[in-house]
């Protein structure tokens, strides 16, 4: 799979839940290229999870077309399953246990790795995610954040080409968030792994996103772009039930007061920008 090749295409799908809730993921096409870090922001209940479930073939659209690695996941997901790692929003049921270590071994053994290879892979991911202290625990009795990490480990262990993460940061403590972002960025850089993340933590978006989608109402994908573009230009993120990242708010506020330091999105950029302007003032 070459860098930049198109691996996901979603073309105006409609899904109707049994209680007649209709989610229509339309507006822009949802397109993901190999090696991109894609994030989706949107209000509660707007259809993010619904979209991801279509990519995984768990839901099959009534109308419209979904293609992942050139395959229709509603039909043939098993052909590409090995390439896709998933962490669902509701992490509880994703962990099959009984112990953390068993759970991490689950996928490698199912895909026919030998015990030795599987052990080795598990060790590596356990180290990456700092799971040593809990690796022998029974999965039912982990704290909320610990469960999330175990689910992540289960998804990462196969070193998939595509990672689908539904709100991976909820319930993680700040340092674990930071670690996770770092791990994801490393994987993306070293192995070209593509990942699609939904999240609500706008402050984290700039650090782990090449392409940002905004979703609206009941599935309306209405914006696509680089995070700085989207946060920079938008006046009414509120209509998406979103906020700007803290720094954007700060610098927009300063601009209103007549102090234009630009639109930095990351702390180091912000410090540099303020410093530069401060010096220039002399």
């Amino acid at each position, binding site marked *: 799979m070459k860098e930049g090749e198109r691996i996901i295409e979603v073309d105006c799908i409609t899904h109707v839940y049994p209680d007649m809730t209709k989610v229509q993921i339309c507006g822009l096409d949802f397109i993901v290229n190999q090696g991109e870090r894609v994030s989706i922001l949107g209000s509660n209940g707007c259809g993010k999870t619904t979209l991801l479930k279509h990519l995984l073939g768990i839901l099959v659209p009534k109308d419209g077309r979904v293609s992942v690695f050139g395959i229709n996941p509603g039909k043939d997901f098993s052909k590409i399953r090995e390439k896709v790692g998933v962490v669902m929003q509701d992490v509880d049921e994703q962990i099959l*246990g*009984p112990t953390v270590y068993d759970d991490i071994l689950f996928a490698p053994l199912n895909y026919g790795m030998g015990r030795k290879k599987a052990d080795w892979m598990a060790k590596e991911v356990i180290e990456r995610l700092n799971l040593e202290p809990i690796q022998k625990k*029974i999965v*039912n009795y982990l704290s909320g954040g610990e469960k999330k990490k175990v689910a992540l480990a289960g998804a990462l262990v196969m070193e998939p080409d595509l990672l689908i993460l539904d709100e991976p940061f909820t319930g993680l403590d700040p340092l674990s968030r930071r670690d996770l972002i770092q791990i994801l960025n490393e994987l993306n850089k070293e192995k070209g792994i593509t990942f699609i993340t939904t999240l609500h933590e706008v402050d984290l978006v700039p650090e782990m996103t090449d392409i940002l989608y905004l979703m609206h109402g009941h599935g309306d994908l209405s914006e696509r772009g680089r995070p700085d573009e989207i946060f920079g230009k938008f006046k009414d993120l509120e209509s998406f039930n979103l906020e700007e990242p803290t720094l954007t708010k700060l610098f927009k506020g300063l601009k209103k007061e007549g102090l234009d330091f630009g639109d930095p999105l990351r702390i180091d950029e912000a410090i540099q920008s303020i410093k530069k302007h401060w010096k220039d003032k002399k």
Partner: protein
Amino acid sequence: MSHIHLPDGVLPVWLWVPGFIAAMLVAAVLFRFTKKEALSRRFPLLGMMAAAMVLGASVEVVPIAYHVNLTVISGILLGPSLIFLATFVVNVILALFGHGGITVIGLNTLILSIEGVFGYFLFHLFWQVSKRLILTTFIATFLALVFSTFAMIGVVSLGTSHYEELIHHEGEGIFEFHLLKDKGPHHEEETKKTEIHLGRFIAIVLPLGFIGWILEGVITALITRYIHRLRPDLLHLEKESQ
């Protein structure tokens, strides 16, 4: 097919009314003699195991009502008196979903609870002897299901004379007024000479049942093993192993 939900309208009144009364009586007695706190502490477990039974009973494995029952495992987890109440609840809810009759809730409860109650006692009995969890569970499950299947066959065959009536008295008036018919022991002899073929019924039920008993036994054993690993406290085995 360890257990079948008898539907409405098949069995005679004189059979299901006493069934109902008996089940109510047992339930009332159990409610009375279970300690209130013990009951309310284990309510959630009761609810969940009953839910598991409802689900098991509504997921068909094979068209002819092959389904897992999970009664024995529930019995092991809940103990003999709570399992009876749970079974009662299960039958009420299944009846509400249209899976079994409302009039026969009592009989269904009596039959089904045999699995749970016997399962519980057999499980503990065999555990004393062998201390091998999988084997113990399998045998206990298997035997408990055998008992309940025979109980079901028994109940169905008790209704024999009623079926005959339905066959013979066709068009003899719209309503049946004589609700409580006095039936002596003689109706069993009749069986042979009329068109009622209980033999065939049994010949169908038992072989199908046999496969069901084995399946259920295996599944119950595997589940028990898993629970033993994670929450051994739920199986209440400590006392005996010491």
